């Protein structure tokens, strides 16, 4: 509304300024000859000046004066006289001109703005956006706000600490790794930070604990033996590395230290079973049908099994960008470790199709398949 008030006002002023002189009744400034006379006078002054300075001698001076005089006379005889009578005021032409302006100006302005303009787009200067009430803004905007703050002030350790878990939740694990690294650089290593960085690294690696993360978990556990989370990953790393004996010890240790209703116990027990199976030390008691049903129930209702989610993410990535050999290797390994045999076989089949020219890889896949089929 304010916009149209101002725009309308400006348009009105513009039209007014345009048509006012058309009707004004002041006298015309003179005939064309009057203007020529001014040029003639200027020329005469100039010639006088040249004589004063001695640039031209008396003879040339006379001659120049005569030439200018002739020129002016010629002008006076031809062009100007009849024209000067044509300076009419108002009348029909004025009316037509005014109507033309009154129609064209607003028509072009409104029509053109309707065509090209972005009505109702408010100004959004950056500072105002950053100062605005954060409630009601999208996570992306908030995140960008935090990011631009951190770009301006990259030594704000608390800022990195706040932003890192948000990255994790949004699935931007690589950014989370960077954020945790910055937090550690500024705030110094703590058991919790090292664990979080290790976790972010593990997620970035598609669920497989990388060497750097493993080292971080060990340091974290050493710094604070009460911190249970690193123990989980250390045990998982043993499983993934095929060191099942150490894995069994680690899982047992974790289970012993965990409070009874800890959410990770389910997974820990599954993984322990897996390790024991591989070692052949698992007690030969099959779970009852009810147990399996319960486990299924639990795994659905329980806190999201984050390893599965990681694997799903990797699977998604591979669907989008299938020509990623290490990705396939990793996902097959993950499925194998998680004992998702049919998924693993399906992945192997797909990879075999995709990389049929890569003989070495095909051979590796065949080996994996035979292991799974045992």
């Amino acid at each position, binding site marked *: 509304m304010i*916009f149209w008030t101002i*725009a309308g006002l*400006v348009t009105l002023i*513009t039209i007014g*300024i345009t*048509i*006012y*002189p*058309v009707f*004004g009744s002041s006298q*015309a*400034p*003179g005939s*064309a000859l*009057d*203007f*020529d006379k*001014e*040029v003639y*006078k*200027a*020329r005469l*002054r100039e010639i006088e*000046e040249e004589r004063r*300075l001695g*640039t031209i001698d008396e003879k*040339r001076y006379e001659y120049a004066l005569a030439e200018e005089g002739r*020129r002016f006379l010629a002008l006076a005889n031809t062009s100007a006289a009849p*024209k000067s009578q*044509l*300076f009419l005021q108002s009348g029909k*032409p*004025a009316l037509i*001109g005014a109507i*033309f*302006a009154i129609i*064209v*100006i*607003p*028509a072009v*302005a409104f029509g*053109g*703005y309707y065509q*090209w*303009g*972005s*009505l109702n*787009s*408010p*100004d*959004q*200067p*950056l*500072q105002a*956006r950053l100062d605005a009430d954060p409630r009601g803004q999208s996570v992306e*905007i908030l995140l*960008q*706000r935090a*990011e*631009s703050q951190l770009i301006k002030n990259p030594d704000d350790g608390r800022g990195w600490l706040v932003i890192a878990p948000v990255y994790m939740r949004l699935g931007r694990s690589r950014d989370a790794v960077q954020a945790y690294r910055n937090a550690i650089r500024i705030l110094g290593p703590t058991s919790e930070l090292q664990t979080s960085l290790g976790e972010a690294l593990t997620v970035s690696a598609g669920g497989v604990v990388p060497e750097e993360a493993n080292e971080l978990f060990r340091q974290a556990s050493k710094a604070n033996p009460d911190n249970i989370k690193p123990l989980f990953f250390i045990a998982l790393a043993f499983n993934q590395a095929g060191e099942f004996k150490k894995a069994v010890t680690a899982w047992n240790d974790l289970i012993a230290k965990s409070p009874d209703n800890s959410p990770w116990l389910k997974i820990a027990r599954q993984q322990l079973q897996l390790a024991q199976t591989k070692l052949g030390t698992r007690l030969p008691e099959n779970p009852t049908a009810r147990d399996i049903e319960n486990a299924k129930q639990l795994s659905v209702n329980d806190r999201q099994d984050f390893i599965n989610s990681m694997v799903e993410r990797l699977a998604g990535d591979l669907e989008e960008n299938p020509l990623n050999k290490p990705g396939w290797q990793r996902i097959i390994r993950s499925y194998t470790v998680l004992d998702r045999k049919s998924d693993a076989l399906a992945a192997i089949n797909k990879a075999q199709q995709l990389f049929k020219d890569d003989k070495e890889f095909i051979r590796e896949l065949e080996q994996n398949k035979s292991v799974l089929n045992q």
Partner: protein
Amino acid sequence: MIVELGHYTLVLALGLALVQSVVPIIGARIGHFGLMRLANQTSIMMALLISFSFGALTWAYVNSDFSVVNVWQNSHSLQPYLYKYSSVWGNHEGSLLLWVLFLAIFASLVSVFGKNLPPELKANVLSVQAWILVAFLLFILITSNPFERLANPPLEGNDLNPILQDVGLAIHPPLLYFGYVGLSVTFAFATAALISGRLDAAWARWVRPWTLIAWVFLTAGIAMGSYWAYYELGWGGWWFWDPVENASFMPWLAATALLHSALVMEKREALKIWTVLLAIVAFSMSLLGTFLVRSGVLTSVHAFATDPERGVFILAILVLFIGGSLALFALRAGVLKSGGLFAPISREGALVFNNLFLTSALATVLVGTLYPLLLEAVNGSKISVGAPFFNLTFGPLMMPLLLAVPFGPLLAWKRGDLLAALSRLYLAAGAALLAVIITLAFTTDAPVLAALVIGLAFWVMVGAFAEISVRTDIRKNGIAKAFARAFGLPGSLWGTAFAHFGLGVTLLGIVSVSVFETEVIQEMKIGDKATISGYQLTLKNISPRKASNYNEDIINFEVLAPGGEKFVMQPAKRIYTTRRMPTTESAINTSGFSQLYVSLGEISENNSLTVRMWWKPQVTLIWLGSLFMIFGGLLSLADRRLRVGAPKRAARASKVESEVTING
């Protein structure tokens, strides 16, 4: 709302321009003063509207309003303030808005300062200006709208191209554009004259200040651009015969020719048709330059063909205005009476000589610039017409012209005396000869041609003041009286002298740096030394620095000058954070008129840095010369003697007029 109001006022200006392009010219046709007078008000209003629009875009840039696409694409919230302002015209859309703003400002200047113009002429001129405004406003609104918006703006912009983040960009384009657009006024005057069929000495007198203003700004813009390229691009060159440079040089050549031919028309009423043609050509060159730079045709003819919207639009503008005005010229030139007669050896003759060579030079540059483009368009082959072509063609054309420069002002109108003029130039001839001898004596490997050109430079420089010396005549009048007389001389005479002197100064700089420049390229590690022209450079250390939108490594050189004094030079390598774009900043040390120039190359595998060093003797004269030219132009512009008053009845501004009379 500010941004949208800016957009609205731009569209409103289009409506106003449409009215101004039709109504006043009809008024002039039917002799209706009210309709003619309308252009006075509308052109001022239009300048105000477009100023507001430009101000709104500037506001968006300064406040980092990334909801404006143009702002988001070309700026960054962490830029220093100066570059937030200059980012406005550091891109296609914004620079066109600046172009149009200047166009409107010029029209309003004609309206305000044109009280001495007959109403019909003024109405026609302002209508023609409005045609150009309509064309460019449509171009902006349809193909290059700087006010496009984003619904969900990002929080950070893409930054301005790092090469453009420099004080040079803040100054160079506005100067150049003001010059380009200033030529639209002379074009409008020429077209108006063709429409009304009236063309005489008075016309030349009325046009004179506008051509001069445009010329002064073009000169300043080109010189500034050249110095900017020199220090920013790090190649140490000051002119590359690059199409973009030629695009600004061609209007300058045409405007220079126009200034001189208008002189003949003003004083002698000769060369009328030619002068009008030059006025058309000068602005056509401006349009051509705008087309070349803005259509993308330079990057590749094919890129132009695949995204032709903008290019075709400007091409249409080009064809419409150049073709239209030339057609009008062809229709009307026969009606125009030719003027006074003159002998070949005369002031007029000298100015014709000047015009012949300047326009031939213009044709040369035009061919050299367009030929590669045409060839690529026809058969796809990419050739580059570089410095060798221009040096072989443009250079020789300039020599006779420069030789003739001192003669011109000394020849009388109608019939001159060449020998008498020469006898007044003995001092200049002596200085030139001395310069040649000294050059040959004190340099070992300079080619004779170089010595001759240096002589030519001195001939032009000293000869420029021959007329002043003749008019004051120290030997006859004594120093005191000569000084008094010198001060009494008209400004336009001093203006001519300074402008011609500047030409000589620039020439001296050009020869000196092209012939005597030395260059050393060396791989250097910390602690290494290099020697160039007696200067010893030591690479001391590298200090990293963090600026708001870039990080840089400053390479610290300690320099020992031949005279024993020590100073530090700090070229740098920068990385601009947003665009991840590296740039190098050269370091320049000026002593006298000469410069030591250090520029950085790549860091090689064994961790040493390639350093390019130049000793550029008298290089600054190139730009100092143009400052003299500008000064000359301003002196001439300030010459009150040449101002024409408005008729008494009209003048509520009669004060000015009576002052002029008193002065006269």
